[in-house]
Structure formats: C-alpha cells, structure tokens
C-alpha cells in the first residue's frame, strides 16, 4: 500500500497524503484547531491533482458539499474537529440514508461544547453510535500512529465505495500534531467505472436516477432500514485490531488511538518487571472487534479499559464481554495531556500489584 519514499510528517499531513494517494479529487474544509494542517495541505494539493479545494462558509456547508460530490461518484473528503464534526452530522445522516460514499476526518479535541484545543476521546459515542439522526452506522477507523493515519485514510476511500457509506477517521490532537516517518506512495488509478450503477452523471441515454433519503411510500422506509441493517451487519468482516503481549497476559488493557500507544509504553515497562499485562487496541471502532475480545475472555483474562474521556468505549467492551467477564475502567479527563505515568498506577491497581 505504501512503498515509496519516507516523509517526516504530522498525522494531519499523513491523512492528507493518504487521501491524495487514494485518488481524492474534492476536499471541503473549514478551519478549526487541531486539524488545520489538513485543509492547508489540501488547498495546495487538490488543484495540483486536478481536483477541487473549497474553503466552505461553514462546516454544515462543507459536509453538504461532500454529499454532493459523493452523489457524482467523486472520491471526496472533509475534515474537522469535534465542534465542527457535530455540525456535519445532519449531512452524514443524509449520506448514510442515501447510501453515499465519503470520508469524514475528526481530529478529536476536548469537549463538550468548545472545550479546548487539546487531545480527547470524547467523541467516541458520536462516532460509533451514529452522531446524527436515524438508524445508521458509519465505519470508524482509529489510527494510532502516523503511518496508520496514511494507510487507514487510503482504506477509508475503498471502504466508502465498497459499502456506499460514509467512513469516519477518528484521530485526536496528539495524532494530528505529532510527526513520524511515513512511507507514502503514488496516487492509485481510481477505476472510472466506480459507482457506475448509481452515480449521477446526467441521464443521457439511460433512465434517470434519484439519490435520496426520503421514503414516503408505504413499506418503503421499513424495507430501506432492513436493507441498511443488513449492510451494517455485512461490515463485520472489516474488523481490525492490534494485540500486543496478550498471549500469556493476566490483564488485558483495552485502549484505542493515541491512548493505545501511550498504554503500550506502560505495558512494556511492566513486562520488564515480569508483570503479565497486554494491550488490545481496536483499530476499527465500528465494526467493533468484539469476537477477539470474547476469545480473550474465554481464555480467562481480566480487562481494564483506558480512555481519554469519562467512559464511552467501556460500554462496547462490556457489551462484547457480556456474561463472560467484566472490565475495570480508568478515564483520563479531557483537558490534560496524557503521559504513560498517568496510566501506570491504574494498570498496576487492576493487576492487583
């Protein structure tokens, strides 16, 4: 996927490079910290790639522009951070209802409300439970490092078209602002026929198409919801996660994104002391890697969920483990920068050491 040169870039830039490599041709942005590097980069890159960059008048507008580009079968993306992503939810719901592919990036910052500009995982619920109205799901990918930010953004475009569904990249201010070496490749050639059986190209020589989320005819919406539910169920196969030192672990710490990698430092340190602790890092947050957690529970492991919020993913961990095991929880409040020291004591406590 990424075989070319190595660049030393921010997670935000890695997302932008990944979008370019995936053949993104439209980007709709609106400024908000800590994701500004993405629209800044795309404002230069899109015209060069033969695409369009629009600085929209608001996040609401940017998200609806994404809907429009998607309806034309163009690979397109928008990015924002928490308060801005809240504003995009109406359009995301319409995209899900209309079965349109698009990529939405959220570099999560502190909340609720305007919160702060620092890192947070407070948007977990909004991301995985459907932040807008109605019965819908978006695929949610949570990179833990800059290379993953690149690779998963490429994947996001493929998944969006595979399922004709919005795909969310959920990072945070740590991932967005940190730099790491990233292998990047040349843009892929997007199949011109992609979306050929639904995209709006002008109805010359064929029957017209309507892309809509309104279903007023009797039975039509129920049928539509059943179809969508089946589609969401079929996404199960896309599950991704990382298991680190879980094999002989007594305690498995469940953590995603930047917090996952910070916990990894703690796991390494405690392993050097001979403590049997491992890390389970979900990479897809929807679909959630429940089956893998169940396997670990069946092996008799105990669990601790660590998040940079007051307790959100813990609900999915408990749903996954239902009846088999429980998970302790440690929530690090948004508003502070987490370090390994912040998680060491809670992990020791959960281990009973």
């Amino acid at each position, binding site marked *: 996927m990424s075989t070319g040169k190595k660049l*030393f870039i921010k997670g935000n830039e890695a997302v932008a490079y990944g979008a370019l490599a995936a053949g993104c041709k439209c980007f709709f942005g609106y400024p908000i910290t*800590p994701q500004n590097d993405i629209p800044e980069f795309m404002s230069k890159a899109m015209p060069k790639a033969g695409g369009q960059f629009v600085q929209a008048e608001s996040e609401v507008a940017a998200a609806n522009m994404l809907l429009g580009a998607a309806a034309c079968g163009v690979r397109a993306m928008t990015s924002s951070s928490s308060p801005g992503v809240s504003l995009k939810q109406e359009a995301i719901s319409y995209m899900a209802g209309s079965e349109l592919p698009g990529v939405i990036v959220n570099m999560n910052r502190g909340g609720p409300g305007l919160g702060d*500009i620092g890192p947070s995982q407070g948007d977990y619920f909004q991301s995985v439970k459907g932040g807008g109205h109605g019965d819908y799901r978006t695929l949610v990918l949570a990179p833990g490092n800059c290379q993953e930010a690149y690779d998963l953004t490429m994947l996001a475009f493929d998944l969006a078209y595979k399922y004709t569904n919005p795909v969310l990249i959920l990072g945070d201010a740590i991932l967005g602002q940190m730099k790491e070496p990233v292998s990047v490749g040349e843009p892929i050639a997007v199949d011109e026929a992609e979306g050929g059986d639904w995209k709006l190209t002008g109805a010359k020589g064929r029957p017209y198409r309507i892309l809509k989320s309104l279903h007023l005819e009797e039975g039509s919406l129920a049928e539509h919801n059943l179809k969508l539910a089946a589609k969401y169920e079929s996404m199960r196969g896309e599950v991704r996660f990382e298991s680190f030192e879980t094999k002989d672990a007594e305690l498995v710490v469940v953590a995603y994104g930047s917090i996952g990698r910070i916990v990894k430092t703690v796991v390494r340190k405690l392993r050097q002391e001979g403590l049997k602790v491992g890390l389970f890092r979900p990479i897809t947050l929807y679909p959630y890697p429940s089956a893998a957690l169940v396997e670990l529970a069946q092996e008799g492991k105990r669990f601790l969920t660590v998040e940079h919020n007051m307790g959100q993913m813990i609900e999915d961990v408990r749903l996954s483990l239902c009846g088999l095991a429980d998970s302790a929880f440690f929530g690090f409040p948004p508003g502070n920068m987490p370090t390994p020291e912040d998680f060491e004591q809670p992990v020791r406590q959960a281990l009973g050491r």
Partner: protein
Amino acid sequence: MYQDVIIAGFGGQGVLLIGNLLAYAAMDQGLNVTYIPVYGAEMRGGTANCTVVISDEEIGSPIIHRPIGLIAMNRPSLDKFQARLKDGGVMIVNSSLIDPGLAEKTRIKTFMVPMNQIADSMGNPRLVNMVAIGAFIQASGAMPVETVVKSLGQVISPHYKHMIPQNAEAIEAGAKAARG
C-alpha cells in the same frame, strides 16, 4: 537504543527547528522517531517546547512526563522541567540566560553552555539553537554529531542553503562546549 528529550525555550529561540533536526537525523539513520510540539494558544514571550523520542524499537508514547534528556534554553524551561528529569538524565542549561546556581548538579548530568555568548561570538545570535543541539548530541551520545550536521539540509529551506555551513559550525561549537 532509546533516547528522549524535551527541548524548551522562548518562542523564537528555534526549539521546534532543532527538535525537527534531531528527528530527521534519527530518521536518516533508520531509527524510529516521534516529534510532538506544544501548539496553539501559547503567548508571545512564553515558553515553547517539543518532545523528541528516538528508538530502534517501535515507539509507544510520544509524550514524556519524565524525560532522560532536557535542553533548557531559558529560565522558565528550567523551572518547569528540571524536577521532572529522571535521575541520571542529561540536562543542557543555557548559562547565558540562566543562573548556574539554579541548576541541579548531582542528581543529573548537567552541562552549562553559554549558548548566547557562543552564538554571538560566531557573529549570529540566531545560531543559539544550533549550539544547544550540538551540546546535547555530544553530552547524551545519542548519535554522532556529524549525523545531525548532515541532516541540516532537511530543516533549512533552500532559500537559506548558504547558511548551512555556519549552522554546522555552531553545532560543532556546542558539542565542543559540552566536551568541556
């Protein structure tokens, strides 16, 4: 191989640039590296800092509360980070701006480097950051000084290419100061 360092100073002293320089040097050697700056609502005249982590293994946390390396280019940086430095850690103190009496000397390995004086003596006060990174590379033994010099072209824009030799000299001067 593992090395981390917090580089801190006034905004404008070039701490983010030398953080990037160190990171590029590590990357050019095939090592894993993370760099994270503080960003956002910093005040002019306040402190700027970044954290660089270098390892031959996969890097977990890019954020370090208790580092093994510290470059303190001004007094607020010393006040903020000195106590966090791990026992036996390496600290480079800008003795041009910081009273040497404030620096711990037994718990950690402290190197007093008159960064501003050295830069001024080279005819360019803006070289102060290069003196600092030269001293740190020498004192920590994180990598050969030449590898950092070789990576200068990655952080200095082509427009200022003619400044590379002078920056290289400042790195060497910093290293020399740390050798004592």
